[in-house]
């Protein structure tokens, strides 16, 4: 199958006659991304067959400091990767503006158009294509253990108000169980887990239009609705007695380890808000739907389906060698993620994928949520200009959570950075 893709890529691409000469030059292709641990294993497994079929060697390296490391690799010139998997559209826009990205060859571009919904690729239609969707995720999920809820008579909340009431009941429970598991440590990206929380609250409390204005910089941080979302987040999650381990744990525990108390025999927390990809951080053998389940963070109105904040990792290319073109063609095709999808923890926005045949049960639920007609917005901080959304915001929200800055200082710093960016 991989060979078929290679051949299709070759047939569609110009200069195909050079297959023997150009392909498999013997150089190893470097792929750089944010996946580590089990996710890195799953990604590597998804390209094993490609390597076997083509003889092309691929090395995947994943870093917790992905954004800053990618910047350093590109600017150093000698260590730039051939392909990168970037979760932040803002970073990709900046790289494209700087002329760092290589446009996809025809084979890859065709495969992207064939496999993905047009709204995901239309912004690039008619011009050179620089990015391809890869792994999608739903950020607005709250994980809980049904057995813990059943024992204590708690039920899944239908509105934000009900969520507040549930949090109060958990606080008043006799057991030493706290409402939330939450932590934000993630190297130079520390803070992203907190921005996800705030984005979900903005989208629910202020609506999609305001959310879009905020994400694109038309609406600043020092705005009543943004302040309201930040205050809600503070009251609901950060406040004393709301989160396992308190502030110290929030700041020092790695994001991927935050859910551990949820799974303890005597659970430390009842709720854990994290994206769909959190399933790969759960203890081995955890069955979603039995050991742990999820609900979408509720909206303000029980009669309307709550909107979703979505994330998505995109593929970009830094080298135009024939081997790299072949790898890109493989990665954008459904084959490029089949092994990861089989293992669980992968969902793609590709419309050509048959949900029943492709995904394990839990991932199929995510896919159905995606296709269920809800209002969906991309992670706002990832859409913001890279210097603001993928750096400053992470640092500033962390300082604010730590108590090093006040809410006033935090929003003022963010708006000042926008003002500076606008000034030529």
């Amino acid at each position, binding site marked *: 199958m991989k060979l078929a893709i290679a051949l299709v890529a070759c047939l569609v691409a110009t200069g195909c006659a050079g297959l023997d000469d150009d392909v498999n030059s013997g150089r190893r292709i470097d792929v*750089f991304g944010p996946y580590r641990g089990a996710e*890195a294993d799953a990604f590597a497994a998804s390209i094993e067959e490609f390597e076997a079929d083509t003889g092309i060697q691929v090395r995947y*390296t994943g*870093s917790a400091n992905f954004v800053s490391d990618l910047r350093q*690799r590109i600017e150093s010139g000698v*260590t730039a990767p051939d392909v990168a998997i970037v979760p932040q559209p803002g970073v990709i826009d900046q790289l494209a503006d700087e002329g760092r990205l290589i446009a996809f060859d025809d084979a890859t571009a065709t495969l992207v158009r064939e496999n993905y919904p047009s709204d995901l690729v239309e912004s690039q239609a008619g011009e050179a294509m620089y990015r391809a969707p890869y792994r999608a995720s739903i950020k607005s999920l709250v994980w809980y253990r049904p057995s813990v809820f059943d024992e204590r008579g708690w039920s899944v909340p239908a509105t934000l108000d009900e969520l507040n009431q549930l949090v109060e009941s958990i606080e008043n429970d006799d057991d030493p169980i706290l409402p939330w598991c939450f932590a934000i440590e993630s190297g130079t990206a520390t803070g992203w887990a907190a921005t996800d929380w705030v984005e979900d609250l903005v989208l629910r409390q202020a609506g999609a239009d305001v959310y879009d204005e905020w994400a694109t910089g038309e609406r600043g941080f020092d705005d009543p609705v943004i302040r309201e979302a930040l205050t809600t987040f503070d009251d609901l999650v950060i406040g004393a007695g709301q989160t396992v381990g308190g502030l110290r744990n929030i700041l020092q525990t790695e994001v991927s380890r935050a859910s551990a108390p949820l799974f303890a025999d005597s659970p430390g927390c009842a709720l854990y808000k994290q994206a769909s990809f959190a399933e790969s951080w759960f203890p081995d053998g955890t069955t979603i739907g039995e050991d742990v389940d999820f609900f979408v963070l509720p909206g303000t109105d029980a009669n309307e389906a709550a909107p979703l904040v979505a994330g998505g990792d995109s593929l970009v290319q830094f080298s135009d060698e024939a081997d790299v073109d072949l790898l890109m063609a493989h990665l954008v095709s459904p084959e490029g993620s089949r092994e990861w999808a089989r293992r669980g923890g992968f969902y793609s926005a590709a419309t050509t994928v048959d949900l029943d045949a492709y995904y394990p049960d839990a991932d199929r639920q995510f896919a159905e949520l995606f296709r269920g007609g809800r209002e969906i917005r991309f992670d706002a901080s990832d859409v913001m200009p890279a210097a603001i959304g993928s750096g400053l915001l992470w640092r500033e929200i962390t300082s604010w959570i730590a108590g090093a800055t006040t809410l006033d200082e935090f929003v003022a710093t963010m708006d000042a950075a926008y003002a500076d960016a606008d000034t030529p």
Partner: protein
Amino acid sequence: MPDGADHDDEVALPTPTEPTGQLTPIGSFATWLRDVVKRQPSEEEHEAIDDLIPQGGPEFFEYVVRFSLLIVMSAAIAAFGLLANSAAVVIGAMLVAPLMTPITAAAAATVTARNDRLWRALAVVAWGTALAIAVGWVISLIAGGSIVDPRDIPSELEARTFPTLLDLGVAVAAGAAAGYILPRRSTSGALPGVGIAVALVPPLATVGITAELGLSTDARNAFLLFITNLAAIIFSAGVALAVTGFRPNQFGGRRALRTRMAITVLTVALVAIPLSFHTRTTLEDLRLRRAVSEAVTAWDSEVTIVELDADAYDGRASVEILIAGRGDPLPAWQLAEEIQDRFDAAVDLRLLYQRDELYTVSVR
């Protein structure tokens, strides 16, 4: 004591130059060596072996009381020493430990094919084993509170939770020494050396401590170390005694000896299986540590490794490293790739950077 070979009518006696193949290789070797050595143990040497454990009556009871007290004391010393991470204290415990006596008595009873003595000796060993583990457990309950995380385990304790083939080698050599020393009262001054070389009570105290801490794998491995030592000492002390002329003195004893030695050889072979896995893992870990050291130098020659924790398993390398340096750290992904270039496996790296800066200030 008659030479058993002269009375054996069941097995053709092999000549030194023509092995018949009817004995095990070890048996053939022992026979050959015996014919070369051509010696018989003296009366005094027999007595020394017979006196290891009193045979029944009030004397045996007194012996068991004395033995139990020494076990409790040595296991307590060992457990405290292990928790305090003091090698000197643990060696002290080895010198107090009385387990070597019943184990070598078991080896002697194996060689002389005296079942009553063998069972009695093994019963004493089993009692001592249970007692030492229990003492380790209780001491850990009292004094193990400082260990709240498996990573806090003192190195003295940790060293006894991963036996390898090297430990088997030590136990075989030390067991042979015990077998040689025991019948000769003139050489008994060397016996404590055997006890230190092949420690018996510290691994048992380790079993008790780690079991109490809920570290079942560590407890199993420490017990494996004890079983390794036990089996290897009985085996090699038995061979040493056989070579120096000790034989079964009853009719048909030769076959009994062969059966018993075969059982000890089988036990040693069985413990060698997990030990060889451990040895392979140790060698892989060593190779990984070397690869990491080289990679760090290639990555940034200005930094030094402060702490390195490297585990190789299942075709992957898990590396945790604390480095110190003066300048800004270079990106960690480069180090991970340098490690992979040298170790050729999936690498998971956790890098902590500690600035090599010290500020001391006094204000008056």
